């Protein structure tokens, strides 16, 4: 999963077009994108949509429900409980909040907690350990507000949080998902932020506008050079190499072989190489 596109659940045209933009996952949003007076409409519209949608098989369908401390949370879960939802995106998540969400279901669910407040950054490991958690999504805007900082193009104010999300996600085998870039008119700033997120080791990025999906997919896909090197590593293994050996001038050992396998797996998943 490289790209996660937020879709406001109260906008029929956007729901109808949601699968057109090549996002790896969609986050149908019942929380911040929907005004309080629109919550009921949005919930029912989404429920109808989820029942009739023709979902491409490789796309993750997720829903950002309202926070567990709100009345809307229970209404969200009550209505959507039996719909085809691959994961729930939980705002301002804590370990307790995740438990509460999980308790609403009689079957296992997957959860993507959003970490967007300073106390969550500090307690992130407890969130990551919770059953069902598959990823950590950094919410940069709310976090900066919580810290009393101003969001900037280079994102220095969320540098610590970014690093911590990547570190803990890696430690618990979760997907680290970067915050969305909110200035949809600033293409240069968006490209800069993509590079920053990738340099931190983020594995995916969320988006609030479809035009960001392509850049995200490009950035978080294995590059042509990475794929070629991984293929050469596999060819060397097939040819009988083992232990520590040299490929394309680089020393290869067990971790490099493992990474090459992962690279090829992701490349296949994203259609960058043939499955055969």
């Amino acid at each position: 999963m490289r790209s996660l596109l937020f879709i406001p659940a109260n906008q029929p045209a956007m729901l109808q077009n949601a699968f057109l933009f090549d996002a790896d996952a969609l986050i149908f949003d019942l929380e911040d994108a929907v005004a309080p007076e629109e919550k009921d409409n949005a919930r029912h519209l989404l429920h109808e949509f989820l029942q009739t949608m023709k979902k491409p098989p490789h796309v993750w369908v997720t829903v950002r429900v309202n926070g567990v401390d709100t009345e809307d949370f229970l209404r969200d879960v009550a209505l959507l409980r039996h719909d085809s939802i691959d994961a729930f995106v939980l705002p301002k998540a804590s370990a307790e909040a995740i438990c509460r969400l999980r308790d609403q279901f009689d079957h296992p669910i997957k959860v993507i907690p959003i970490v967007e407040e300073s106390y969550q950054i500090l307690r992130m490991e407890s969130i990551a350990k919770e059953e069902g958690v598959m990823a950590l999504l950094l919410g940069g805007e709310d976090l900066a507000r919580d810290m009393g900082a101003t969001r900037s193009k280079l994102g220095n104010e969320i540098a610590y949080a970014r690093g911590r999300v990547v570190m803990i996600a890696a430690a618990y085998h979760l997907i680290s998902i970067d915050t969305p870039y909110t200035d949809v008119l600033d293409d240069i700033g968006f490209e800069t932020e993509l590079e920053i997120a990738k340099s931190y080791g983020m594995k995916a990025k969320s988006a609030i506008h479809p035009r960001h999906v392509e850049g995200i997919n490009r950035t978080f896909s294995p590059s042509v050079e990475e794929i070629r090197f991984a293929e050469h590593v596999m060819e060397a293994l097939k040819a009988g190499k083992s232990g520590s050996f040299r490929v394309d001038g680089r020393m290869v050992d067990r971790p490099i072989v493992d990474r090459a396998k992962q690279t090829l797996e992701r490349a296949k998943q994203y259609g960058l190489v043939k499955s055969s």
Partner: protein
Amino acid sequence: MKNLVDREISKDLRPYGEQSLQKSNHLSKKQTSTQVEFFSSYKEAFDFFSLKDGITVSFHHHLRSGDGVINDVCQEIRSRDFQHVSLMPSSIFPTYQGIAQLIREHRVNNIVTSYCNGEVSKLVQQGLLQGDFVMQTHGGRARSIMTGERKIDVAFLACPTVDKSGNGSGMEGKSACGVLGYAISDLEYAKKVILVTDHLVESLDQYQLDGKYVDGVIVVDSIGDPQGIVSGTTRITRDPIGLKIAKDTTKLLDALGLIEDGFSMQTGAGGTSLAVAAYVKELMKQKQIRARFCSGGITSYFVEMLEEGLVDKLLDVQCFDLEAVRSSKENKNHQAISASVYGNPDETNPVSEQLDFVILGATEIDLNFNVNVTTDSFGAIIGGSGGHSDIARGAFVTVVVSSLVKSRLPILRESIRTITTPGCDIDLFVTERGVAVNPLRTDLIQKLDQAGIAHWSMPELLQIAHEMTGVPRALSFSNEVIGYVEYRDGSVIDMLYQEGFE
């Protein structure tokens, strides 16, 4: 009687059909005048040339929404209480209220134009013309004037700068609008030609309107507002659906081998068309190739491509914005062409026939790829061919881009209200939900199959649309004829009707 696209055509008209590609004979250009008369008012000019009831008056639309000349001429016609006037503006914009006023006062017999939007559309659809409302193509308009099918008594041509020999240029002056491509056939074939300017100079080194065809010049304080020439849609769309369509179109064109060194293209000025140009530009940079030419109405986007060395020349029939005006004046590779050179089917090698591909829009398209850009789904006149049918016929590959559904209405329909451009001239229909290839283009189908690019039939796309919207209820429209749509060869491709339902 029915024509080749199965439309019922009035018996006195020539139906669009197989003979539609035959070339016709041109008249000689008008006698050149030896003396250019100068006037300080419309009144003087009307008096001098003894203009009277029943005249046919033509205009160009290069000042677009900023045009002041058309309204001023209409006012003079009213003040003289002329009746039975016929008008041949190359296009009609909502600001041309003078025409609307003449129609309301029942002074107008016929209107012949290539595009119409606004009050005039509404009035002609109420049946207020005494004669016909005829919608031509840009190339067809030039052809009909040059063959004498359409005779112009007097052409009032707004001209931003005129010299004392009667030569005219659109590049200079406070009302500069750039190229005057739609005025050329009027200039060369109208019985009387009167330039109207707000900038008279001693002499012009370069001019597009040759004074030898000019009979009179009216010098006025203002011919219009140059800010008004900016077309309404000259920005790249930010709509994600439009961008997806544009991106998919570019991939398709590349897979078809159409974006190679030395190619030629035209896109409209609509947001999605311009986005195609943007993606093509990006691809050209990656492939390090140049285009031979881009043509049509020119926007700042194409000027950028010219100035960045990505295209050898621009062949410009009209400037859509002020950057294009600047470039047309400064850059010798930004070349002015006439509507005839652009799209007249009688020309030996019109620009439209040299195009590798063209990107066009549609308000509706049917299962046979017939396109409507003249009326909306309810039959209201909202546009017209302009150059649509000319370049659709000429280009090697003609692409129509559109959302499959707009405002809960499918753009693809079993039957469309008005046929502007015949489906045999449309090769690809690109939507956000898939691409359809005209079955006549087996060569394109084969190439897409080889490239592994999925494509659908029109019935399949229609099915997708109907799954989203349901099947639209069939409407019974008025069958009161108010005019017709003329194909570029002068045959009639469809009739126009009063607005409303039976």
